[in-house]
């Protein structure tokens, strides 16, 4: 064993690298991560355009700022509920326009649920998502 390798091994950190595990996870989930990143970029653009802070977005969505902070990293597997809440909170279209008519039903013409923003939020909202 070389002197350099001996030295590195003798001073090896007890905290192991998580990079390989993370990289493999990113590769295995690349397809939906691509969507998550595009959605996050759209949300950030809307926040910029409307001068909405993370704190304000959290208030509008009825969740914690910590949750929003994690969401804006772009690696969250967002539920339909989260996407719907983002659309309403920022008045943007993420999913709605891409949904087509099914048996005469259109997501665009369905009754608005914007009122839920004023409803009490479940205390555990956001906890189920990665």
């Amino acid at each position, binding site marked *: 064993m070389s*002197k350099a390798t001996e*030295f590195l091994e003798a001073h*090896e950190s007890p905290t192991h*690298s998580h990079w390989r595990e993370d*990289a*493999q996870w990113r590769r295995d989930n690349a397809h939906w991560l691509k969507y998550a*990143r595009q959605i996050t970029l759209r949300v950030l653009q809307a926040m910029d355009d409307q001068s909405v802070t993370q704190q304000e977005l959290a208030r509008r969505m009825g969740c914690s700022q910590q949750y929003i902070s994690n969401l804006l990293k772009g690696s969250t597997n967002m539920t339909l509920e989260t996407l719907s809440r983002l659309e309403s909170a920022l008045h943007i279209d993420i999913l709605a326009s891409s949904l087509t008519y099914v048996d005469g039903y259109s997501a665009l013409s369905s009754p608005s649920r914007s009122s839920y923003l004023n409803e009490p939020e479940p205390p555990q909202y956001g906890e189920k998502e990665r």
Partner: protein
Amino acid sequence: MEFARILNDGRLWAVQYDGEDENCFDSLFTHWFDINWLKEFFKNNLGDLTSFFKITDIYQAINETLVEAEKLECLILDISPDANLDVLFKHLENSRFTEMSLGKEKARGAGTSRHPSWLRIYAIKMEPGIYLVTGGAIKLTATMAERSHTLAELARLEQVRNYLIDNGVYDFDGLNDYTDHE
């Protein structure tokens, strides 16, 4: 200062700086895949992005960084045990064509059709094929000395190199061993 093993076969290591939660290699990719972090970075460096890369939209820059980081990460992830890391890392100084003991090196992303990559991983070459990552950066200027975040990476390279020398990893015997392998 401690060291984290990045590749199991011991060819790639990274510095775990005192007081940091994760080693500098893990931290690099954590940042490069964090859209909110990238947004803040490009917002704070929009002038350089515009001057040197003619990009005025930070969201375009974020998108390109994500694609570049993914390519670079896959390249490292797929390095076979037989492959030589020397093809990934090049001398930090573009004007240096000779080997030096504990040389300062850099790896960069593949770039796009429009411009070269701005992603950099900095490392010390411990010996042929074995590298110790000291940090990395999004480099938007021609030289590292022009901006504080890249200047800090230069300082880290020097700090780690000096630490290795002070701890006897490099000495005249070591130099002889080293050059014998060249």
